[in-house]
């Protein structure tokens, strides 16, 4: 029984290779460490397209690469001018907005797939499943969605690069995606899609861990788990530094 299953598992890629191409993706780093000098990171998402029998078709298939950060529930507030002052007025919830989202493709997404397919695979900023909550009116929902996308786009947290994937020899692809320093920590997924004639014919997923490490990790954890000690340290630090400076200057002055 187990031997048979094993044999099937081993054979599966070969059998599948007969019918559909496969993707072998990789990432320049499996783990992004956020440390004191972290100002963002450039990730290289690359890989190979394995065609059945090694025959590269004449018609070049396209590649889209999506890097998505952990999903967080958020509340988006909109400022309005009330009595001459800009203040938060309406708000809208989104239950599943990714903290980071970047898509790179070899052609603009709109030229690759139709809207339905793009929505299924969450290809492109317009097709993110943000799960707006609260049964708001559709036009208000759209306004807040547009506001959220634009804000995060300006912060470098949401990005779209319609020409960001380079395919060489029809079989090797690579894309560069920059993640800024203010990204949320967590498990990111890198999805690669092989698209031909408006259809996704192969897909592969890889995980990347983005996390604080070393001193930064220690500080962030202490602030959360040992709040009192952390607070005490935050009080002692200025007292000590202030006293040290005063002593230093008194000696020098006297």
């Amino acid at each position, binding site marked *: 029984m187990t031997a048979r299953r094993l044999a099937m598992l081993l054979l599966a890629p070969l059998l599948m290779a007969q019918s559909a191409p496969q993707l072998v993706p990789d990432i320049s780093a499996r783990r992004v460490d956020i440390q004191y000098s972290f100002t963002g990171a450039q990730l290289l998402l690359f890989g190979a397209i394995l065609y059945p029998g090694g025959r590269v078709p004449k018609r070049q298939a396209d590649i889209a690469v999506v890097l998505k950060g952990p999903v967080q529930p958020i509340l*988006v507030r909109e400022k309005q001018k009330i009595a001459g002052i800009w203040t938060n007025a309406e708000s809208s919830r989104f239950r599943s907005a990714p903290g980071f989202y970047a898509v790179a493709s070899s052609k603009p997404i709109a030229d690759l797939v139709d809207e339905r397919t793009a929505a299924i695979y969450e290809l492109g900023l317009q097709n993110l499943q943000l799960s707006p909550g609260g049964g708001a009116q559709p036009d208000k929902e759209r306004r807040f969605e547009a506001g959220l996308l634009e804000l995060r786009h300006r912060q470098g947290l949401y990005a779209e690069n319609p020409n960001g994937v380079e395919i060489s020899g029809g079989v090797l692809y690579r894309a560069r995606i920059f993640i800024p320093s203010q990204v949320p920590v967590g498990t990111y997924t890198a999805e690669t899609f092989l698209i031909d004639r408006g259809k996704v014919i192969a897909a592969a997923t890889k995980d990347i861990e983005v996390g604080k490490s070393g001193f930064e990790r220690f500080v962030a954890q202490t602030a959360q788990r040992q709040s009192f000690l952390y607070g005490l340290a*935050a*009080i002692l*630090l200025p007292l000590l*530094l202030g006293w040290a400076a005063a002593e230093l200057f008194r000696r020098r002055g006297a």
Partner: protein
Amino acid sequence: MDIYLPIAGMSVNALLIVVLGGLVGVLSGLFGVGGGFLTTPLLIFYGIPPSVAVASATTQITGASVSGVLAHMRRGGVDLRMGLVMIAGGLVGSLAGAGIFRLLQSTGQIDTVIGILYVLLLGSIGVLMLRDALKALGWLKTPEQAVARPRHNKWVAALPGRWRFYASGLYLSPIAPALLGFGAGILTVLLGVGGGFILVPAMIYILGMAARVVVGTSLVMILAVSAATTMIHALTTQSVDIVLAALLLVGGVIGAQYGAMMTTRLKPDLLRLTLAIIILLVALRMALGLTYRPDEIFSIEYL
């Protein structure tokens, strides 16, 4: 030189933050203000999340006041008895402030309220100080010069139970300084300011304290209340960024020393004029920020 702030979750230019801390430190040593009214808006302007800016600027206020307190203590410029009464009021005030903060945060109005409070407080204090400084310098003639201002405020004098404050040269009810401390405590939590720019004029004009001990005493009170506020932030909002605080402090404590050294050499009236102008500029900037269309109409809050 870029450095990553673990709590703010972003990288900043370390040198810029140190210089900012240094400049604010000079002002704090010079005027006996915590300097938070400059640090907090500047940090927010730089892109630091407001809650982190407020909580971390508080530690800088502590550091800047330590050197100030020591410097003033050596000169005998601290009324400890008065300071303790104000600290007691301040601690209660900071707890009340924390409650108000959370209430405003949940309704999304915290930024607007902070902005309006800044404009109102800084604007009125700035105008008062400017008028006074100009009069003292003789640049502004006042026709009703003959009307002498009473040394004691009549409401303060009406409060029950009087204590003697020898160093301040006062005999008055401890309720008045405790209330002042209470107000400053609320401001420390809410605005990330020490409240020195309110305390100093209030101690001079409302309490009628001897000018010699005003700055030192206000610094003692600011020191204690800002330290308590740091703890409240660490326990509740958990948004004290110790790396950001350290950067601000390195500049701040050294700046405060230079500031304290300068006080003895500069004309006090010119000092007040300068502080009044700085305060009015910050108020103007905040007022513009409230009424001009902001860069970002939308803001994100994590649930």
